[in-house]
């Protein structure tokens, strides 16, 4: 039964991906990508990867799609027809695909419990992490403790993305002189943003409902942040969800109101703060006599130490991801303002 569900989902994925090749309407292409992302999240659930599914749904189907739509709003909606038709890409793809198929022929069978992956390193994570790290969610244990350095790297990647987007687009702030983060701020003599962008003022229903659910979304983000030790979730997903709440606010009530709630200046401090919190925990471990990110030394009882460490670094991840996502959204939105003028 599970295989059947899998097969149907994979078939739908294939149909979606094929459609992307031939469509010229970029809006539809982006929506199809959102669908593709959601479908793969469903596959992740059926393959028991609930944490991954959660992330894919919030990031791939959520943030990525929103960013692509934002880009479309700033560029073009239709792909132009091109004359040249080259066989080279097809040839490259067929060769690569052939090599991959050749590689699969020798692979361990799908889902077989005797596969090498299930016998070499992973057993320790499954059997001992509940005692060593003390968390029921093994994914969180591996993510935050055994491979905590990977996750620090991941946080730095997110931070680099923020640096990249800010240096490329910059956030235009109102009434504030240009400095640091805000590049190309040509905001002198322009109207207050909260007046120029009233949000969706005419949509009374939307405004009421948004006010109703934004606190709930934030509550959910906090739940995901601190419940990640026991169920699917963690800093990354929580950061994205919290950012989504503020993005919704800025969309419905206007970017100016958004800036009043979380100003770009605050984000400028929050973005590095998360990374520093994470790395700071690592340094603290070093100062207390352990290796970098060795949470055992943080408390007299190693399992407690692991707990403190993991809560702190998940918070660091959450803060940075939240700040970066909101930063990126602000950067894209202030571009729209510029195009509109």
């Amino acid at each position, binding site marked *: 039964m599970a295989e059947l569900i899998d097969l149907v989902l994979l078939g739908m994925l294939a149909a979606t991906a094929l459609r992307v090749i031939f469509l010229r309407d970029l809006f539809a292409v982006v929506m199809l990508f959102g669908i593709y992302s959601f479908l793969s999240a469903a596959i992740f659930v059926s393959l028991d990867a609930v944490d991954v599914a959660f992330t894919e749904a919030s990031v791939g189907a959520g943030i990525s799609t929103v960013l692509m739509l934002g880009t479309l709003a700033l560029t073009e909606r239709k792909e132009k027809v091109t004359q040249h038709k080259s066989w080279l890409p097809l040839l490259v793809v067929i060769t690569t695909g052939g090599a991959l198929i050749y590689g699969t022929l020798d692979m361990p069978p799908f889902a077989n419990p005797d596969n090498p992956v299930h016998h070499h390193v992973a057993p320790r994570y499954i059997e001992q992490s509940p005692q060593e790290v003390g968390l029921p969610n093994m994914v969180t244990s591996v993510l935050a403790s055994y491979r905590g350095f990977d996750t620090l790297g991941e946080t730095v990647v997110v931070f680099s993305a923020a640096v990249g987007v800010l240096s490329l687009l910059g956030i235009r702030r109102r009434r504030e002189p240009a400095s640091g983060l805000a590049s190309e701020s040509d905001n002198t003599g322009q109207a207050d943003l909260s007046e120029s962008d009233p949000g*969706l003022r*005419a*949509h009374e*229903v*939307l405004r009421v*409902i948004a006010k*109703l*659910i934004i606190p*709930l979304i934030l509550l959910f983000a906090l739940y995901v942040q601190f419940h990640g030790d026991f169920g699917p979730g963690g800093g990354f997903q929580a950061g994205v969800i919290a950012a989504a709440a503020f993005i919704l606010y800025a969309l419905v009530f206007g970017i100016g109101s958004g800036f009043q709630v979380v100003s770009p200046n605050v984000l400028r401090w929050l973005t590095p703060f998360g990374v520093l919190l994470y790395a700071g925990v690592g340094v603290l471990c070093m100062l207390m006599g352990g290796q970098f990110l060795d949470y055992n030394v943080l408390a007299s009882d190693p399992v407690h130490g692991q707990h403190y460490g993991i809560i702190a670094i998940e918070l660091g991840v959450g803060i940075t991801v939240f700040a970066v996502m909101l930063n990126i959204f602000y950067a894209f939105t202030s571009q729209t303002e510029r195009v509109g003028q």
Partner: protein
Amino acid sequence: MIMLEILSGFLLAIGVFFGLTGAIGLFRFPDFFTRVHSASVTDSMAAVCILAGLLLQSDFGLTAVKLLFILLFLLVTSPTASHALAKAARHGGLLSIPEHKHSVKGQD
């Protein structure tokens, strides 16, 4: 117990039926507003029925509470989304088919 099973199966079947009709409607209906209508049927009726069916299958625990929350959330958000879509289309000047015919006639 068997009654619950039957009721749950019935609700799931209705949910799937509405999902399917919603999807067909999305493809077959002639203009934007009728399509929004059929899409919102999928959102509300299908999702509600399926979730209710699943609720009946689950024990009264955390899972049931979570399902209930999802149900409430969907009940709030999906009509709002449909409403916003339709309203945005109206503001953008999109006309329904009868109106469109009427306006074309008026020009003649």
